[in-house]
């Protein structure tokens, strides 16, 4: 315990009382560094005494130099973690006589007032509440003596906008109290250096890391692909090991598995949709040993203390290495004990993916965390925050403050563009270089402390019955609901017709192929590197080298052997297979969800432009299904894929995404952060179909693209695949639909409308004309007429009476003309009618069905019909000619 020698005796006494015979690895590594005053990133699994390793020296320092106001901030991403931390740190603080408090959204007004009057030395809080601290005059005063800021679970924050907001807040803080020591606590990440830059900007920092991988004991099992067998396997594993955490990827799976295991009486379910009371009750019972198994989602990943865990089961592939490490890391934990975890794989893709992720976890190949670069809406939010904080502040100073964050260190002219945009929405005023607060800015800030978008309820409105049939969470809508998508609510199927802000317009749907989006939406994407390695494993088939057990090896080998027997080529990391099936073309491409999303959308928009048809796409980590009309073949998809220039992908996607519901929702969320739209705005006031145009070429639109292209899809990875297709290191082949191509659970669906909005017009025109009632009348025998609709007429209509093909096409109201033509004696006028009908019939004789369709159009007589037919156009171009003719006709008096 020699590291503790220069600690205050009271602190040493506490360590003894806590029963720490010796410091843990992370503690002994971190302690001297913290004492030396260095900025620090501490990387270690949850429960290894990471918090104490930072807090022991901080508490020690607090004892040594006391001052008024807050002295240290402990920031965690969750309120529940705050509560947990308060419990843990209260003991230390009471023993040492240091005041401690917690402040977050749930803190009562009384408590807040007390804190304003006598601020605790150690304040536990969330990034959002830190924002609020800058708003009050009294609280701001208490910020002057802060010497330490500890950010817990920093890997959770760094990858998103909350983290970007937090780093700006830290620089704003430094304006009050000067430099303070920064300590970040993180789970294992691939790029600890980036975490350090994220927290400290340009300042020097050290990284202290405990290698988790050597303490991980991970295996992959396969128990058959039926859910019952899998549940039974889990039961047996629970009986073998004792206290078990069972991680699942979705809430629906959690509920389903819970349903299977409830009868045991010692299993419960824990996920975000359950109320806080229910969750805390489950945590307590698990901690007390009353529960043997707890089925949970990512809700249990973070460091909430639930006592000793013997074994972690991951049900289905964990999708990401970091997730697996984090989850399995919850087991064991008396510091040096190993953590035991088992992945129960559920199918072919799932098994290979699990093997790859397990190998990478053991080798310490954890994913990087990518902090967003220059998120404009965060900047807008922070500019508003500083405007309110200072009343009036120069852009020069703002630029200096944000420039210290790595997130905004290369912002260029972004600040000016953001300020101009905000001023347009009257959130701030600009006076030369100065930013001036407005009355609205304070109100805005109160509603926008958080970069987490507040979950609004979205109404589901049935177009047919014209009533509201239910509500959905906004996040579900953003993740899973697109124009054309089908989903279930209230036990019924609905198809989405349109999304307006605040409501979804739907119609009842009959049925749909494939899996339906559930309440979940929380799709965890498989990273590019993992998907590539799965492709490699498909190629090498070296399952034993991946420590696959007997059942796993046999299942995977048998699956591939069947592919061989069927003469289906196995798509892998060097082969993209395009397989034609009934529903369209499956593009088997091992590139992960986000790269496939980018590829799929880019290819589909090109296909829809080339063939003038809507293309539906569905995506998973290993395949893209293009729903295509029958005349578009796999070879057409190949041509587009091979011809796609990697450098053009982003540009194509910008056009492609613009009309999607996802883009619209993103845009609205970002516009809210710019103060364009209040949280309680009455969207009914604005015909929202034009909303997108209001943000054309603005920084708001740019941010929506930035977020889509970095969070929802991986454009650089997609470009890499295309580059490899170009240089031949990835081959593209065509085949029939294989069992592998048909496999897999499609879960992300969307439709790419063709770029011409005219398509909808032409489709409507075509439907109308084909549905137009007409009368076919024989001009040869003049004794046969028949009423039908234009679309039903055969290619060359024939008179059933005389066999002639001289058939005139009449509109219903022209029917009396036929009687005129049949007359023996005709007046001059009547002769003219007859001549007209003859010309009409002659056109049908030579033009066939196309002539029939032409003559069914509004105001199109024989003259115009022959002019249209003479253009020799087909398909959409043909209908476009009809459209032009109608447009001419209706400009005339005769019409109106």
């Amino acid at each position: 315990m020699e590291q503790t020698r220069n600690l205050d005796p009271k602190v040493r006494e506490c360590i003894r009382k806590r029963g720490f015979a010796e410091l843990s690895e992370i503690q002994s590594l971190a302690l001297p560094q913290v004492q030396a005053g260095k900025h620090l990133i501490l990387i270690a699994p949850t429960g290894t005494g990471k918090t104490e390793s930072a807090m022991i020296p901080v508490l020690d320092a607090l004892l040594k130099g006391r001052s008024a106001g807050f002295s240290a901030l402990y920031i965690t991403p969750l309120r529940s973690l705050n509560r947990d931390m308060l419990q843990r740190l209260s003991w230390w603080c009471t023993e040492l006589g240091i005041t401690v408090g917690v402040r977050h959204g749930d803190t009562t007004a009384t408590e807040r007032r007390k804190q304003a009057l006598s601020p605790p030395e150690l304040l536990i809080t969330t990034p959002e509440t830190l924002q609020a601290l800058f708003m009050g005059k009294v609280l701001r005063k208490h910020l002057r003596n802060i010497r330490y800021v500890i950010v817990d679970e920093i890997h959770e924050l760094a990858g998103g906008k909350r983290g970007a907001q937090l780093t700006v807040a830290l620089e704003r803080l430094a304006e009050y109290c000067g430099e303070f020591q920064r300590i970040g606590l993180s789970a294992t990440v691939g790029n600890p250096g980036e975490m350090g830059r994220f927290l400290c900007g340009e300042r020097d920092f050290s990284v202290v890391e405990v290698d988790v991988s050597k303490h991980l004991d991970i295996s992959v099992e396969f128990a058959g692909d039926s859910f019952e067998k899998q549940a039974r396997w889990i039961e047996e594993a629970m009986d073998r090991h004792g206290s078990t955490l069972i991680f699942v990827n979705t809430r629906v799976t959690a509920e389903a598995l819970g349903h299977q295991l409830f009868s045991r009486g010692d299993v419960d379910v824990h996920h975000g949709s359950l109320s806080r009371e229910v969750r805390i009750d489950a945590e307590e019972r698990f901690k007390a040993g009353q529960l043997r198994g707890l089925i949970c989602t990512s809700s249990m990943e973070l460091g909430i203390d639930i006592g000793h865990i013997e074994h972690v089961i991951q049900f289905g592939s964990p999708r990401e290495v970091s997730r697996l490490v984090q989850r399995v890391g919850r087991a064991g934990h008396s510091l040096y004990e190993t953590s035991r975890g088992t992945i129960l794989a559920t199918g072919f893709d799932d098994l290979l993916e699990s093997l790859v992720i397990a190998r990478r976890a053991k080798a310490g190949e954890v994913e990087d965390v990518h902090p967003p670069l220059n998120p404009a809406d965060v900047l807008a939010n922070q500019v508003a925050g500083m405007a309110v904080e200072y009343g009036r502040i120069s852009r020069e100073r703002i630029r200096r403050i944000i420039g210290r964050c790595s997130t905004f260190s290369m912002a260029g002219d972004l600040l000016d563009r953001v300020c101009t945009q905000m001023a347009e929405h009257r959130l701030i005023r600009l006076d030369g270089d100065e930013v001036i607060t407005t009355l609205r800015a304070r109100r805005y800030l109160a509603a926008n402390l958080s970069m987490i978008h507040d979950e609004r309820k979205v109404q589901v409105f049935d177009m047919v019955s014209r009533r509201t049939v239910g509500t959905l969470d906004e996040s579900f809508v953003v993740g899973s609901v697109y124009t054309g998508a089908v989903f279930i609510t209230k036990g019924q199927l609905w198809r989405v017709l349109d999304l307006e802000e605040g409501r979804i317009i739907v119609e009842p749907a009959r049925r749909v192929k494939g899996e339906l989006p559930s309440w979940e939406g929380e799709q965890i994407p498989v990273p590019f590197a993992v998907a590539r390695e799965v492709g490699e494993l498909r190629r090498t088939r070296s399952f034993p080298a991946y420590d696959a057990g007997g059942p796993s090896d046999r299942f995977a080998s048998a699956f591939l052997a069947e592919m061989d027997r069927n003469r289906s080529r196995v798509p892998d990391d060097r082969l993209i297979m395009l397989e034609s099936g009934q529903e369209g073309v499956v593009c088997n491409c091992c590139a992960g969800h986000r790269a496939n999303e980018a590829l799929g959308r880019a290819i589909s928009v090109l296909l829809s432009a080339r063939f003038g048809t809507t293309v539906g796409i569905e995506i998973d980590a290993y395949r893209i299904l293009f729903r295509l009309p029958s005349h578009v073949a796999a070879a057409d998809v190949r041509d587009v894929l091979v011809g796609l220039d990697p450098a053009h992908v982003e540009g194509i996607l910008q056009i492609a995404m613009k009309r999607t519901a996802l883009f619209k929702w993103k845009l609205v969320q970002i516009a809210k952060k710019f103060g364009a739209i209040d949280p309680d705005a009455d969207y009914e006031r604005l015909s929202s179909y034009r909303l997108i145009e209001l943000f054309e070429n603005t920084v708001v639109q740019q941010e929506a693209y930035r977020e889509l292209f970095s969070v929802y899809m991986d454009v650089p990875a997609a470009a890499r695949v295309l580059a490899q297709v170009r240089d031949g290191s990835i081959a593209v082949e065509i085949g029939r639909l294989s069992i592998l191509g048909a496999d897999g659970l499609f879960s992300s669906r969307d439709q790419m409308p063709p770029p011409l909005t005219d398509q909808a017009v032409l489709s409507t025109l075509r439907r109308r004309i084909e549905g137009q009632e007409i009368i076919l009348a024989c001009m040869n025998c003049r004794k046969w007429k028949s009423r039908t609709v234009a679309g039903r007429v055969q290619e060359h209509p024939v008179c059933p009476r005389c066999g002639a093909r001289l058939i005139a096409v009449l509109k219903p109201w022209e029917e009396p003309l036929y009687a005129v033509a049949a007359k023996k004696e005709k007046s001059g006028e009547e002769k003219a009618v007859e001549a007209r009908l003859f010309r009409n019939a002659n056109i049908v004789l030579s033009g066939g069905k196309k002539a029939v369709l032409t003559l069914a159009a509004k105001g199109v007589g024989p003259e115009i019909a022959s002019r249209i037919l003479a253009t020799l156009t087909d398909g959409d171009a043909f209908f476009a000619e009809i459209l032009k003719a109608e447009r001419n006709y209706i400009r005339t008096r005769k019409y109106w």
Partner: protein
Amino acid sequence: MTLGFFGGGPALLVSNTMRVLSVADLHLGIESDLARHGLHFRSRSRDRLERLEACINDAAPDLLIILGDLKHGVPYTSRQEFREIPGIVERLRSLVPVRIVPGNHDTGIERFFEPEEILPKEGAVVDGTGYVHGHMYPDPSLAGHLIIAGHHHPLASLRDEVGCAMRSPVYLFSPANEQCLGFPPGDRESTRVLFMPAFNELSGYDLVRTVRDPFSPLSRCIRWDAAEVFLPDGTFIGPVSSLEEYGADQEP
């Protein structure tokens, strides 16, 4: 008589013995009202004026008729309107003689126009065509004419085979039920109504909703079964019933 469609407006040119250009529902000042409801955008009045000037340039009309709801605030006149409208009206006057048929939002419009520029609220016949805003029963003198009306902001959704919707402002054309409008019987041409799309790009009201719940005398007195829909550039879409494709494949 011929009609010219200016899709960039939308604006409509009626050519008979003279050329009359009409636009409806500019709703100048809508932004200050939106702001009161939580939507904060800069004023786009200037853009609207430029669009209208372009239509006037293209159409070279002898007369401009504003079919009501030039302004947005009702029953007050907002600061934004006081600031912007005089200049806009002045600019239009300098290009072409202007008339306005006041709409329900045009309270206090007398302030901005000369008395002779203001036509009766109940509508007027100009060069053989009737013009009315559309929120009141039209004057009987409009009977037997084509009546051009605003007020309804018709907006339609079009779908292709896969269901992707395009939304567009539209014209709506229909024979009128003269008895319902209170027109005396007479030997003359039948009365027809042409509803114009709103000129204000932020306004739009789903046509199908108007069909189901007609909210004005005019929309209650037209024959919806015979009503036809046109795009702002004059493209004929089809009868209103063809828009109600919604739910075509629903279960019984």
